[in-house]
């Protein structure tokens, strides 16, 4: 019954999306004049009810997973009665159908939220935006209902479920996909705004101010999602690496790059009324990238260590949706771009100029990553199978990333509209001197490669340059959005220093230890105390207990495990980490080498934690900026209301 309720809700939500599309489109098209405009009253309610109904459908799916209803195919395929409850719930979205339902649920909930809170946009643009939103959602409902029904029943209930991929049975990963989806879906809202504004030709600073919180929100979630995903890969896969240029990782990086560019250009549009067409274009591109990401991950068309659900039919469905949305949006863009009135002018040496260069460089990195990710697909069509890896991505992206850091350092110091380089010469010299000093220190520390050297040097310079805009300003009265920028830029510098330090200075020790023997890695001495079996809720493991002491200090206890899951039968490696302020010790227990010895892999990774600390700082910067924007809007609205009240009083 629960499954049928869910399915019915899904059909109802699809119907409401169709209503939203038709009524929104007609209302936007005919303005206030024609009879069709009466439909306008339906748009907002349709969006709100659609959101509620879709959330209900998703709740039904979670309920099925909580009860482990094995008569439902999806539950039987992806769950197991013995799984811990939290992973039963997470199982609802840890698979293709469930994650697509989550996607559309977040999207429709966002649509409902826009319909409730958004009052800044002109009514027609609002209706066009909701129509676009309904259009996008409709495609995903069709996808779910016709090719990925999550509520499908089995002819005969299964006796026991298949279980969930053990790699996904990790608390971090359980919440990783929803975080990324909030990001992807936030970009779909930006897309709808862009299409809506194009349809009604109302690309104004008001529009950018309305769109910006959505882009910021999406960007914050993407940042957190990427950071968490990187940390998950680092400790769960046992390779000791934090970025693999895996297609699935690229699938989240590409929308992030586009969203970062959009965020900056929307700021220019909001405060300076320039870059109108470019911002619209980025709105379309950013969502395209999240669709491309979905396509890559969901179609199983590329090799990936974390791709699941290989199904060409679904791949073609998503590809068709991609073509319709992106093609449609680009067609509207092509028709309307020339009618968007020109914005304000600015000189090349100005805040706007720096932001444009930053945008161009971000787009170039995006292009390089996109090409590298899709290249295997292209050559495959020609019958040649290749795989593209770090030897391509590292240098190709660094070529554009390194100059971007320089622009990032200089941009915030420049004034809007027009500036002279001489005015910012002194702060830039300071930052440059710090970069040079860092370079010399790193050189003295013997032998890192050229990229980590540049990374360390530019990271140090950028760290200094990012706090320079605070100089000579009243810190208490500084707008939150400015704080956000400073913290986010500083976060980039911190992350970069972490990456460079890990690449340059990591030490690795691989040994076969008897119980009681000691291995040395960097300043650490690690003693294998014991290896013994332990049992978890749905796995057995061998646990190695190690005592690790840093430079002769108090020993800390580490317990890496080699786990065997029962359902499905699979083995995973659980690394153990010991974190200090200046880095992390990373330990993995391997197989028995020969009866008496155990393989132990140890890494000392100086300052590696800065990578994720930086990621969190970037996200925090986004949160500050979002709060700042919201606060400013509220203030502006209060001022307007007071002014209106005064005018009314005077008129009387």
């Amino acid at each position, binding site marked *: 019954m629960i499954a049928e309720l869910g399915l019915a809700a899904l059909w109802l939500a699809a119907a409401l999306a169709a209503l939203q599309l038709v009524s929104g489109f007609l209302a936007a098209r005919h303005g206030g004049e024609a009879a069709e405009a009466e439909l306008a009253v339906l748009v907002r309610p349709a969006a709100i009810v659609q959101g509620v109904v879709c959330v209900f459908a998703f709740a039904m799916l979670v309920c099925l997973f909580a009860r482990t209803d094995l008569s439902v195919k999806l539950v039987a395929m992806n769950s197991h009665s013995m799984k811990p409850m939290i992973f039963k719930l997470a199982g609802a979205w840890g698979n293709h159908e469930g994650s697509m339902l989550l996607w559309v649920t977040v999207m429709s909930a966002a649509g409902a939220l826009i319909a409730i809170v958004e009052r800044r946009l002109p009514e027609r643009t609002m209706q066009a935006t909701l129509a676009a939103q309904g259009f996008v959602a409709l495609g995903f409902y069709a996808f779910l209902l016709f090719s990925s029904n999550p509520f499908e029943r089995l002819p005969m209930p299964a006796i026991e479920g298949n279980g969930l*991929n053990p*790699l996904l049975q990790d608390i971090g990963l359980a919440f990783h996909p929803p975080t990324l989806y909030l990001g992807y879906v936030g970009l779909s809202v930006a897309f709808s705004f862009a299409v809506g504004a194009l349809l009604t030709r109302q690309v104004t600073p008001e529009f950018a101010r309305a769109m910006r919180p959505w882009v910021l929100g999406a960007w914050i979630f993407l940042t957190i999602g990427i950071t968490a995903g990187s940390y998950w890969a680092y400790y769960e896969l046992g390779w000791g690496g934090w970025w693999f240029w895996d297609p699935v990782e690229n699938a989240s990086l590409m929308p992030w790059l586009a969203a970062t560019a959009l965020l900056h250009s929307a700021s220019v549009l909001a405060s300076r009324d320039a870059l109108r067409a470019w911002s619209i274009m980025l709105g379309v591109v950013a969502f395209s990238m999240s669709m491309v990401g979905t396509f890559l991950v969901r179609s199983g068309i590329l090799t990936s*260590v974390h791709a699941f659900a290989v199904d060409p039919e679904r791949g073609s469905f998503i590809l068709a949706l991609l073509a319709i949305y992106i093609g449609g949006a680009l067609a509207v863009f092509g028709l309307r771009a020339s009618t968007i009135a020109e914005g304000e002018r600015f000189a090349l040496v100005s805040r706007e100029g720096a932001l444009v260069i930053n945008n161009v460089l971000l787009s170039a990195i995006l292009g390089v990553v996109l090409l590298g990710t899709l290249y295997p697909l292209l050559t495959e069509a020609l019958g040649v199978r290749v795989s*593209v890896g770090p030897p391509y991505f590292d240098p190709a992206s660094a070529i554009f990333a390194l100059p971007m850091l320089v622009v990032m350092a200089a941009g915030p110091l420049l004034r809007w509209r027009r500036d002279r380089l001489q005015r910012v010469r002194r702060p830039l010299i300071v930052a440059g001197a710090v970069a040079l000093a860092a370079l010399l220190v790193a050189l003295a520390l013997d032998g890192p490669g050229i990229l980590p050297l540049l990374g360390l040097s530019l990271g140090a310079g950028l760290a200094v340059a990012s706090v320079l805009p605070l100089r000579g300003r009243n810190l208490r009265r500084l707008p939150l959005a400015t704080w956000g920028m400073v913290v986010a830029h500083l976060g980039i510098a911190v992350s970069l220093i972490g990456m460079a330090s890990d690449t340059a200075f990591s030490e690795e020790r691989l040994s076969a230890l008897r119980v009681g023997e000691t291995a040395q890695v960097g300043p650490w001495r690690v003693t294998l105390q014991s290896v013994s079996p332990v049992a978890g809720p749905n796995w057995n493991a061998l646990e190695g207990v190690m005592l690790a002491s840093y430079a002769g200090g108090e020993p800390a206890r580490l317990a890496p495990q080699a786990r065997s899951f029962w359902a499905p039968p699979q083995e995973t490696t659980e690394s153990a980490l010991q974190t200090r302020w200046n880095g992390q010790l990373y330990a993995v227990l391997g197989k028995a*080498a020969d009866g008496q*010895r155990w393989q132990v892999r140890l890494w000392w990774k100086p300052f590696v934690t800065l990578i994720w600390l930086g990621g969190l700082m970037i996200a925090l910067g986004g949160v500050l900026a979002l709060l700042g924007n919201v606060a400013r809007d509220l203030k502006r609205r209060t001022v307007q209301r007071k002014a209106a009240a005064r005018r009314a009083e005077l008129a009387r």
Partner: protein
Amino acid sequence: MNDSARGLQPKHQRLALVVVAVVAIVAAAIIATWALRSQASYFYVPSDIVKHHPAPGRSVRLGGMVEKGSVVTRPDGVTIEFVVGDGTARVPVRYSGIVPDLFVEGSGVVADGRMQANGTFIADKLLAKHDENYVPRELEEMTAAQKKMVVEETTSR
């Protein structure tokens, strides 16, 4: 404000932006294509290695089947040697480290690493199937019979 004298005309400014963007995108495309070209031979099966001899020290990816009975553990307890074959050619591989959980003799494997002058492949990283549904797609380049074998070996029982 003396904009027209010092700033660019709007049309020119727009043109300049478009030119900058186009130059950057073209540069990105050129760099990417160039880098991809040198990457095009990143993935090798053993017969490619024998035919094309990738330069020693260059980073490549090798894929094939771990030959049955070829895995030997060195006395240090952490270095293993095995042979990767594709039915026509065989490449000896050395790997120091903890093998992935699903690394099994007779099964498919993909190794990142580099060739040595003496013809041994030194692997930095081994990728085996990651779950019961995962087949390294690169291995599909092998002949149909080998492919069938890989699929049988690496899909769920």
